[in-house]
């Protein structure tokens, strides 16, 4: 196979994978930016979004409508978790926040197992999404779901970019991320801004969950675990708390993984994650605040 075409092919794979990491990482970074808390339950909104889609689809709604509702259910779940679990402990020591978010993760995943059992379920997507698209006489092949993933991610990012830079609420969110106490003193309704942040972050995770399930073809209660860890890495690489950093970090991570799988001997592929995490450690030795960062302490 022609090397140039091979690179294009792997590039498409990398952007598609990176899009998913970016979608999850942005929400993680957004919440951390404002609350200085790592929301480990963030990955579970992927599960909520995907299961939501599955159920609504099974109830008779067409797939696209079900997916839209699934994303909305993910957003709502994030807002509910904030209200019930995080708001009461806001301002508590870091360890308390950490334990709370881990507890929420376990509760959500066990709830998932209780309702859907722990065995994976098929995620039915319209046939058109599985159809293969071939370029260069069949030398480049990808499925429609790759295209949909990339297109929806770009659309979501554009919308977020507009919201954060062009609206008053977005401006308030940037202010809150910089200094929550000062935001309160100038009269911003901080509770409301936090709800908005959770809604957007969880909607993004829900969207990532639907796309992830569509790519893998299955839904399971702990499906958010691995992507969350990857997104966490992406967010830290980018500079935890920075939205643009999480975006860049997500794509860097996607590219790195594909690079290892595609260009190193296949015997290396199983150690992909170990290599990626190893590189992360080396990277952080040189740039402890990440790529886009303003200097700040990263708290778990």
């Amino acid at each position, binding site marked *: 196979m022609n090397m140039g075409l091979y690179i294009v092919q792997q590039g498409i794979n990398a952007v598609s994978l990176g899009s998913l990491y970016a979608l999850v990482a942005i929400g993680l970074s957004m919440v951390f930016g404002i609350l200085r808390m790592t929301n480990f339950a963030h990955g579970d909104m992927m599960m909520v979004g995907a299961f939501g889609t599955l159920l609504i689809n099974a109830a008779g709604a067409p797939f696209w409508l079900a997916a839209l509702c699934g994303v909305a259910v993910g957003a709502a779940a994030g807002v509910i978790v904030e209200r019930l679990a995080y708001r009461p402990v806001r301002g508590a020591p870091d360890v308390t926040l950490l334990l709370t978010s881990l507890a929420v993760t376990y509760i959500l995943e066990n709830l998932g197992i209780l309702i859907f059992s722990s065995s994976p379920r098929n995620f039915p997507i319209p046939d058109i999404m599985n159809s293969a698209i071939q370029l260069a006489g069949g030398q480049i092949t990808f499925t429609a779901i790759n295209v949909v993933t990339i297109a929806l991610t770009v659309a979501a990012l554009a919308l977020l970019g507009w919201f954060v830079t062009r609206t008053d609420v977005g*401006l*308030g969110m940037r202010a809150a991320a910089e200094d929550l*106490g000062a935001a*309160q003193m100038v*009269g911003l309704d901080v509770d409301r801004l936090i709800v908005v942040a959770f809604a957007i972050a969880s909607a993004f995770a829900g969207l990532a969950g639907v796309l992830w399930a569509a790519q893998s073809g299955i839904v399971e209660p702990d499906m958010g675990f691995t992507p969350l860890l990857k997104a966490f890495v992406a967010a830290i690489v980018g500079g935890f708390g920075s939205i643009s950093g999480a975006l860049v970090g997500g794509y860097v991570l996607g590219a790195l993984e594909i690079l290892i799988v595609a260009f190193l001997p296949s015997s290396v592929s199983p150690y992909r994650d170990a290599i990626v995490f190893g590189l992360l450690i080396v990277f952080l030795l040189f740039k402890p605040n990440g790529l886009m960062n303003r200097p700040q302490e990263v708290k778990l």
Partner: protein
Amino acid sequence: MATADHIDTDEVLGVRGLTVTYGAVTALRDLSIEVRRGEVVALLGANGAGKSTMLRTISGVVRPRAGEVRLEGDRIDGLRPSQIVARGVAHSPEGRRLFGSLTVAENLRLGAAQRRDRENVEADRERLYDLFPILRERSQQQSGTLSGGEQQMVALSRALMARPRLLLLDEPSLGIAPLIVQQIFASLAELKETGVTMLLVEQNINVALGLADRAYVLRTGEISLEGPAADLKRNYEEVAAAYLGVRR
């Protein structure tokens, strides 16, 4: 003659019997002050006397253990900070606390977050740019890149964008060159002329008493001296003694 339950319409801020604690530390003890319409009142005192705590309690960031805070007669203690700003109390905090990665213009826009009269916001911003022309030049610059004095002007302007009935200023002279301090206090004097009511926390006794009508001296959470600024200025030793708690 004022009767006991006469409502004093000239009182903008009335703090009565205020006690504030941080865990085991009592920062303010049964403290009462008032600020009348158009007045500039200085709150002086050494480090740790409780000055910032007083301002933070008025703006609702800190909850009092006992006592009440009234704005034009209405209780505001217990309201959320955003509600208190909406009632007309703006707080320019200690250390400025600008949003450093946001532009000067954005910082000012945030100061107007609780305003309902959106249509006047722009005109107010222009008026503040007239007061501090350097900010007009710097309006699209990240506020964190400004000099300390310029940042203090932004902090002050951001608070004024709320069109406050009561302006709380926490150490506007902190860490700023004497010449710029004079410039900032000259601007505050201009604002005072336009009728802005202020409660001014300062460690710089001279400039504070130069601007203020009255002053309270705070020592470890209690008032150790109060009176017209002119009197206190003449009696510098007495103020110094009140600071340190030396009995005369």
